[in-house]
């Protein structure tokens, strides 16, 4: 026979397990803006991030930031255009070409592997990029600035 206290404990355990599962699931679905843990930057607003990924100069903590594009999967590409740069792919590509032609700007380097991207951010104190939250969770070399889409 199950006592009232035991039933309450089972319910509590169930709720905790549920919450933990939801948290893992949520974390897996989130894209986060990341920086090297040694970078003093604590926040970047949407305009600064847009400028950065267009190749324009953005300073934080006394040094120019280095944007790195993460194209390790198709969904990340779509999130980049929709939520980070807020332009269609065609508009963004043309804007990069125009900025090279007009101002001699260079486009941010592209990484096709998330492992290489995380290593690049970890080795460059000025690097800024984005990744799935689960891929950088518990990595002491990386700090999460914010969840993409939440400012």
């Amino acid at each position: 026979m199950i006592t009232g206290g035991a039933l309450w404990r089972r319910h509590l355990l169930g709720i905790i397990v549920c919450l933990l599962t939801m948290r893992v699931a949520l974390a897996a679905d989130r894209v986060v803006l990341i920086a090297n843990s040694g970078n003093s930057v604590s926040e970047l607003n949407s305009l600064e991030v847009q400028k950065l990924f267009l190749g324009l100069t953005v300073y934080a903590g006394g040094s120019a930031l280095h944007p790195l594009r993460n194209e390790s999967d198709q969904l990340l590409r779509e999130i980049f255009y929709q939520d980070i740069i807020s332009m269609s792919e065609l508009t963004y590509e043309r804007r990069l070409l125009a900025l090279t032609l007009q101002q001699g700007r260079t486009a941010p380097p592209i990484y096709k592997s998330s492992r290489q991207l995380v290593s690049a951010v970890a080795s460059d104190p000025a690097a800024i990029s984005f990744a799935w939250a689960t891929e950088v969770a518990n990595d002491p070399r990386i700090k999460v600035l914010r969840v993409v889409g939440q400012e």
Partner: protein
Amino acid sequence: MNPRVIHRSLGLALSGLLCVHVAHAAEDSEHHNMSSEPSSEFVLFVSSEAHHFSEAASNGELNEDAPLIGDAVLAVNHGQFRLFGEFGLSTEEHDLERFQIGYEVIPNTVVWIGRFHQPASAWNTEHHHGRYLQTAITRPSIELWEDEDGVVPQHITGVYVDSRRPIGESSGLHLAAGAGLGVTIQKDGLQELNLLDPDASGRRLSLSARIAYLPNYVGTSEFGLLAAHNNMPVLDHVTSTLLHATNVEQNLYGVFANWSNEPWKIQAAVYDLEMNLTEVGSARPETVVAGYLQVERLLPKHLTAYAREENSDHANHSIYVTLNHPDFELRRATIGLRWDFLHNQALTAEIAKAQRVGAGNTEYRLQWSAALQ
């Protein structure tokens, strides 16, 4: 100019630019995550054109109409230092269009030295020589380059400052100013300083500036004012006799708007050219007003329709325009359709009806353009 000198200079310039790019590309592939490494960008803008004109221009076909045009652009960024080169190559000519070395003194404010495009041109500051990036095949007559019978000097060799300052939360201000050696006037029109065979003798000061409001700092819309002062000596005797002038002083005042809100895009500019043609003991003032309005609309299936109207006032009474730039179009109406059919590649068809001094012309053009990286 000696052809051997041209080819040697051309070879040196091209190999220099390519060596820098290849060296940086090799370094980038190994260490592109290191903060101290330079980054580089190489883009080749190419276009190929077929056309039919009801009447040929008096000076023959312009370089703009060459069957094949290549424009190689190289940008190298290393910390606050910048290197930029643009080399134009066509079946009609080759030229180091721009070569600039710059230093970013504060974020998004760069001081350049070298040969640059003067900032008081609304169209050329936006599109430069990259024909793939301009929707239309042709540029407005008032915006033509010096070697295409342009009436406004477009290249200056000297110092150039370009700055984009934020205003408020998302707007900005674009300020640019350049000063240096300008063009001379010869029988073929305006002659800019050639960096591959520099001859600065007789050249005088050119000044050029723009101030523009950017409603969205990272967007493409701009509304602004333009101003330039060009002092252009007439170097050859025949032209000097024709113009009754040994020097032409040209002041340019302009207003422009580039407005972009998908699916619409509008580009418009109006220029007031105040000129003074002088020789010993006499001076003759001339005024020319010219402008254009281009409207573009994105359509389904990656199509873009566009129309442009150009017009001018007093140009047909200007000795400077009619005698030294006989192919200047007093009025022109253009319509076209562009199809972006592949990544960074487009096909464009264009029809234009143009009116020059004493002649009319209908033009049909078909162009393939691309940006190769």
